[in-house]
């Protein structure tokens, strides 16, 4: 059956693999164990660094991001985001123009309070200087932001503009990668992924010229995280 596929040499390759493995199929008991391993993923060794309490996770996230030349501003309330965005753009001498991820919790923020800011929604266009997006999660162990693509999260926003501002809720910050996978499965279902999941750990960088590390190779030159300290609130839908 599979040999009849128009798309290539599957039959030949599988036969070669089975010859090398000296088996036709895994034995029934082996197969059961393999199925189980796939269906019930178990976390491996999680570094102690990823298992601190939540307040320490926030500190670690900030520390790691700062080390990577990203910047972090902590806000008590999401309502402060428009002001913080305007302040950041001004301090970096950037145009007051941004492309906003079409995400309900970002859309409802008081953008009107910043009349000089030009806010448009949608996926990124070539001329957009700055994107403002949410994040699915933040991972403390390496200062990593997790973006899950979807209607509210076009992925071009993460890469095309030179500046990327990420609104991250403290309740979405976890210690280790594995916790993010658990949350992903809870949201999207077991064995199912959004089309793209982007783990972002600092601004774009390259070492390709004489091993000198430089920022902004192709992706964003600046990565600014607005960390909303909503920790005492129950975690939102995400």
């Amino acid at each position, binding site marked *: 059956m599979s040999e009849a596929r128009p798309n290539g040499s599957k039959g030949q390759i*599988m036969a070669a693999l089975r010859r090398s493995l000296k088996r036709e199929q895994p034995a029934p008991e082996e197969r059961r164990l*393999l199925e189980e391993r796939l269906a019930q993923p178990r976390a491996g060794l999680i570094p102690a660094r990823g298992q601190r309490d939540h307040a320490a996770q926030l500190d670690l996230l900030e520390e790691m991001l700062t080390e990577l030349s990203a910047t972090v501003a902590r806000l008590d309330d999401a309502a402060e985001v428009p002001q913080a965005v305007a302040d950041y753009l001004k301090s970096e001498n950037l145009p007051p123009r941004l492309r906003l991820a079409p995400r309900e919790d970002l859309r409802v923020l008081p953008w009107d309070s910043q009349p000089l800011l030009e806010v448009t929604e949608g996926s990124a266009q070539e001329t957009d200087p700055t994107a403002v997006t949410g994040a699915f999660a933040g991972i403390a162990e390496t200062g990593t932001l997790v973006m899950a693509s979807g209607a509210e999260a076009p992925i071009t926003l993460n890469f095309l503009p030179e500046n990327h501002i990420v609104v991250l809720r403290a309740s979405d910050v976890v210690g280790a990668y594995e916790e993010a*996978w658990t949350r992903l499965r809870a949201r999207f279902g077991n064995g199912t992924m959004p*089309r793209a999941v982007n783990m972002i750990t600092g601004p774009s960088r390259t070492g390709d010229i004489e091993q000198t590390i430089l920022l902004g190779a192709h992706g964003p030159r600046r990565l600014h995280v607005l960390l909303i300290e909503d920790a005492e609130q129950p975690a939102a839908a995400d």
Partner: protein
Amino acid sequence: MLQSSSPAFKENARAALADQTLQKALGNVKAGFIGKRAKARARLPEFEDLRDAARDIKNHTLANLDFYLERYEEKVLASGGQVHWAATAEEARNAILTICRDAGAKVVTKGKSMISEEIGLNAHLEEAGLDVVETDLGEYIIQLRHETPSHIIAPAVHLTKDQVEADFRHHHDELPADRSLVEPEQLVAEARQMLRHRYLEADVGITGANFLVAETGTSIIVTNEGNGDLTQCLPKVHIVIASLEKVVPNLEDATTILRVLARSATGQELSAYTTFSTGPRRPEDLDGPEQYHVILLDNGRSQMLGGEFQDMLRCIRCGACMNHCPVYHAVGGHAYGWVYPGPMGAVLTPSLIGVDEAGHLPNASTFCGRCESVCPMRIPLPRMMRHWREREFERHLSPKAVRFGLAFWAFFARRPALYHRLLGLKMRVLGALGRAQGRFNALPFAGGWTKHRDFPAPQGKTFQQLWAERQKGGAGS
């Protein structure tokens, strides 16, 4: 596949050693990688245990590669993607060209992929009239120069910034002559600007894969520049090329290996971008490719499975082995003559293009073991290079002079009484001849040694002779 110049390794090495610009650039390998890896390792107390865990995950996966690949394919199909199984480089090239043609493609952007080098993809697409654009900065530079990568994660590590400046001035027509390109920052900005609109005009984006996840049908790429992401999220077709052994069972397994990958490669805690792609754009998505294809390449891997080179299939292409290899430091990557240089290349290349062609590579090692000591997947690289030497010896591929010398030596080494009598005499003669100088600056049959260094004169009698004298009541007993 890409043509090899591996049989000319010695000549390649000699030329590399005489190339002062190359030697200057190679200094950056030591400076750029070794200290950073050591620091990252020291910062993560669990690092050594994670290496064990990563090795075990790959071993488990390889032992069940048939199962996991079939499951992976099912999940890709379920997410709306397509899988193309390619037994050979040629099948892979043709599958990719067909996809490009079906998409009516003119411009193809590419993220860095060693598999694409292995199958000689660019030349094939260019011959068919496609405009192929490498987007990784290092790959872009060497594409301008019509060179191949000299390192698996830092393809242009053999170049200095002055050479890059000259290339940009030569190839970038609109670059004003008075624009300064002295600083690396200026070179990066120039490349960024040049490549920006290429991403947007591309019809097809091609990337490699660091991992394939059987649980979800996901391909993962790890990059720092963001070029891989722009390559795969802007064009309407995304093609992933991956060899069979890239599959792992779960996201958790990929995660464990990710924890050792960047730390071993560049000394980063994690690369800037780790991107998980699953199928084409969904109905609700505002962006992303309309088609998602995976080329699954065998090209010799299925033959390595179950044999003495299976451990090599654990390799995650971090480059730590070459970053720490004194031979690589001396000659650079191009001397090895094919796609994969350094210790991992010395093991993998004979598997892929044949030991007749690549016979030098597993021999050009002192077995210093530094590669194995830093390999995140604990691949016993020296042991496998020795396996290749055994195959060469069995097949009489080793040079005649070596075989003859070895046979001569082994004859005596296997006969202790004869050995001691003969060499005892010879050392006394050599000792007497060399006593005045203490050393020889030329010796018959030892030209390889004395061309570059002196040979010490033996002290005279052998230890065994002196020991026998002492046992008979001589000095000291």
